[in-house]
Structure formats: structure tokens, C-alpha cells
């Protein structure tokens, strides 16, 4: 059974239909990408999953219906979203940001172990743990946002455009980390404009266009698809 199962998801803002009825699923242990151009409805889809915008359709996580639940309740069920623009708390320290990621957890020892783990994964954060997060560079903030989401031990981690606004070197670093997180067994759904990167690291992908899913399949196959190559890979 799929970890996440979405059927006929629709999202609209006033009269604008951002997502027009899409089906997708993520199985446990998979790394799935959602690619597409600006305004295709990718971010709206993620926000819909987390209850930040309301959606209609059938959305199930571990078989349980998520539609209509408050965001904090959805998070409590094991979903975590690293939002577009990272959403770090700039006036909290790095360490406090990580603590916020573990907000719903009560196991002190487990939190401590995971914090050590986060600092191993991102040594830059360890050096800066007492600094206000707002003083970090863009790439460091992205690292912090990912590390913070992992602190909640989510069963499904959603990343919204983790490469956005970062220097190429930093983008590679972030994606190496994402691959490593996936190897460790975390299930991931990554939204990305950079189709090249997305298809490289993921097992499966969905291609979104104007609020609908146009194509889907194994990433290596999509990467060879002439349509995709022309539209998203710049051939």
C-alpha cells in the first residue's frame, strides 16, 4: 500500500484553479519528484497536502484521510514540509530552529541524538548553532530548513524547490544530502523546477503543467523522453 495516496486533488484560490484534479502516490522508501514550470501548481499541491490551503479530493496518508485536518495535526501524523523560501525562523538561533523541528516530540534523549546527527550531516550548522538563523547564508538556511524538518522524524518529507536561489555548488551539495537522506530510508517527495537534477536523483517523477499531471513514470525513462527533453531539459 502507498504511504501517500492522492486522488482527484483540486485546489483553487478564489476563481483561479491552481490544481485541477491530479492523482499521484508515494510508496514507502521512494524518492519521488514533481517537476514542472513556474505556476504549474507544484507548490500549491504541497501546500494542499499540509492543509495550508484547502483542497478537495481524496488524500490518504497511511490509509488515513488528511482532507480537512489542521496543518499541525497533519504534521503530527508524520508529514513534514520544507517550504519554498526555506521558512527558517530568522530571529531564533540555529539550535532553537532545530528544537522547533522537534516541537511535537517528548523524547529528550532521542531529540538530543537527532540533533547530534543533524550537526554531523551539516557541520556548518554545528559551528553556528548559537547564531541567529537570519545571519546564515542562503545555502546554510536551506541546510537548516532540511535539518529542522528531519528533527521531527517524518515518515514523509516534502521539499519545495530546495535548489531555488542557490549557487550551483550549493545546489549540488544540497542534492547530495537529499540523496543521502533518501538512502537512509526517509521517503521523499521533492518539487523542483530544475528537471535535470530532479530526474537524476529520483526513482519516479510526475510532470505537472497548468494544474494537471501530463506525464509520469520512472525518472530514467522520463529523462530520455523527447517531449521532456525539449520542454524541460533544454534540448
Amino acid at each position, binding site marked *: 500500500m502507498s504511504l501517500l495516496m492522492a486522488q482527484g486533488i483540486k485546489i483553487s484560490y478564489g476563481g483561479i484553479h491552481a490544481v485541477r484534479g491530479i492523482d499521484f502516490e508515494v510508496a514507502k522508501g521512494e524518492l519521488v519528484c514533481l517537476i514542472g514550470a513556474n505556476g504549474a501548481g507544484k507548490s500549491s499541491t504541497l501546500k494542499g497536502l499540509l492543509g495550508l490551503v484547502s483542497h478537495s479530493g481524496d488524500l490518504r496518508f497511511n490509509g488515513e484521510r488528511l482532507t480537512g485536518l489542521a*496543518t*499541525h495535526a497533519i504534521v*503530527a501524523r508524520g508529514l513534514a514540509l520544507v*517550504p519554498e523560501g526555506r521558512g527558517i*525562523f*530568522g530571529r531564533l538561533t540555529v539550535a*532553537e530552529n532545530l528544537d*522547533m523541528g522537534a516541537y*511535537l516530540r517528548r523524547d529528550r534523549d532521542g531529540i538530543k541524538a537527532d540533533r547530534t546527527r543533524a550537526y554531523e550531516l551539516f557541520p556548518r550548522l554545528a559551528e553556528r548553532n548559537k547564531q541567529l538563523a537570519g545571519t546564515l547564508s542562503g545555502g546554510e538556511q536551506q541546510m537548516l530548513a532540511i535539518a529542522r524538518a528531519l528533527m521531527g522524524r517524518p515518515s514523509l518529507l516534502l521539499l519545495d524547490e530546495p535548489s531555488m536561489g542557490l549557487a550551483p555548488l550549493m545546489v549540488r551539495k544540497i542534492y547530495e544530502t537529499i540523496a543521502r537522506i533518501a538512502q537512509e530510508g526517509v521517503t521523499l517527495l521533492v518539487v523542483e523546477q530544475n528537471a535535470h537534477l530532479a530526474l537524476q536523483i529520483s526513482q519516479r517523477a510526475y510532470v505537472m503543467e497548468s494544474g494537471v499531471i501530463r506525464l509520469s513514470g520512472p525518472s530514467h525513462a522520463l529523462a530520455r523522453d523527447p517531449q521532456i527533453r525539449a520542454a524541460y531539459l533544454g534540448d
Partner: protein
Amino acid sequence: MDIFTQQLVNGLVLGSIYALVALGYTMVYGILELINFAHGEVTMIGAMVALSVIGVLAGVAPDLPGVLVVLGGILVAIPACMLLAFGIEKIAYRPLRKAPRLAPLITAIGVSIILQNLAMLIWGRQYVSFPEILPTTKFEFLGAHISLLQIAIVVLALTIMAGLWLLVEKTRLGRAMRATAQSREVAELMGVNVDRVISATFIIGAAIAVIAGVMVSAYYGLAHYYMGFMLGLKAFSAAVLGGIGNIAGAMLGGLLLGVIEALGAGYIGDITGGFLGSHYQDVFAFFVLIGVLVFRPSGLLGERVANRA
């Protein structure tokens, strides 16, 4: 008697009270960017409820020490005002959470008028006097008279401020409050029940306001259904002076405003050659407010306004 030291002492006492009320304004503004104009009235209701209880207690148990009687009044008024603030937020502000900012602001003014009138109906238009049950011991200090009550007010206020500081900086709830103040959406993504954090902010502010309300009525010896208006405005000015949204700023702004006001009142007669008297003391708070808004809108400890937007 040294007028400077005396007014400094008076100012610190008054300033501690302003600071406590200002905390309520600044905490709510920090989280909702709402100026909760009803906060002054919550302070007033707190004083009124406490005074009623104090009156009853003093009547049925005349042998009880005054401090305990006042404590009894406070202990009844705190839960009452916590409930009141919880209700105000839930009924009046929460439905407007996504409305343009002017709507909740006007609602806040409406709530404040409702509470004033309610208090007038319950307690009447007359001044309610604070029974003389507290010790009136006075000390001489550097040429100034300091009463035990004044010392108690300042010490208690500073203790509450330190406690609030610890709550906000060191506890899980405090961290959630600071996170919510920065981004409600991201706080939700961390699993924070933002509605509950906002309720908690209102409730904590109300509890502190009750203590401030009792302090001010004990200090002046009376309470009145209209007392929340001026007290609220001054506390708001203090919050703006310190940098609204900033908790340390509210504390500093309150103390500073109290001292400015007291020194102003002490010397205004000399400065204007007797033309204006000390009853013009209220003017100074608003001079300060205008001055801050013109020269440093972000307040003493506030961040640049652009960062907040």
C-alpha cells in the same frame, strides 16, 4: 525633600505598572500585529473584580492581614480576566484573522467600549475606593519618601518581568510563541497549534494586567470604570517607545515613560513659571509617543519596520 529623587522613585513605581500593561500590548502585537485596544479595559476589569473581592473579604474577615485580602482579590481576578481575554480573542478577533488589519483594530476599539460600559453598569460611575488595609510604612531614602507599597510594586513587577522573560526565552511554549510571531505558517508546519499559542498569549497578558490593575488602584487608592483608557494609552505609548512587539522593549519603555512622566510633572511648574501645573503630567506620555513615531518609529529596541513587513 529632594524633588528629583522623589520623582524618580515615583516614576519607577508608575513605570513598573506601565511596563506590566505594556507587555500585554507588545506580546499580542508581536504575534498578531494587532493593537489590542481592549487590553486597558482588561486591566480595569481586573482591578474592579479584585476590589469587589477585597471589599467582601475585608467585610467578612476583618482580622485577616491586608496583604492576604489583596492576594485573595488578585487570585479571583486573574482567572476571571484570563477567561475574559480568551473569550475576546476567540469571539472578536479570531474570526477576523484573515481580514484586512483595520477590521480587527476597529473591533478592538469596539470591545474596549463594550467592556467600559459593562463595567459602568456593574460597578457604577463612581470611584471605587481601595480599602485602607495595606501597611503604610514609609522609609527615608536619599531625601525621598518611599512607602512599603511602592517597594512591593517595583519588586513584584520586576519579578513578573523576569518570570515572563524566562517563559519566553527558555520554555517550549515561549519558543513556540517566538516562532509564531515570526511566521504563523511555518510554526504550524513545525506542529505548533497556532490558535492555542495565540490564546496563551492573550491569557498570559491578561494575568499580568490584573496584577498591574490591582497595583495601580492600590497606589492611587481607587479604581474607576474609565481607568483602563488612560492606563492603556500610556502603556501602549510605552510599548511603542520600547519598540512594539519587543518584550524587553515594553519593560524598558514602561519604566522610562514612568520616569519621564514623573520628572516632567515634578518640574513642569518650574519650567513654565507656574503657568502649567503637575496635573499636566499626562501630556508627557503623548509627547513621548509623538516623538518616537516621528524620530524612531521602530522604538528603542525594535527592529527596523521594514524587517517586520
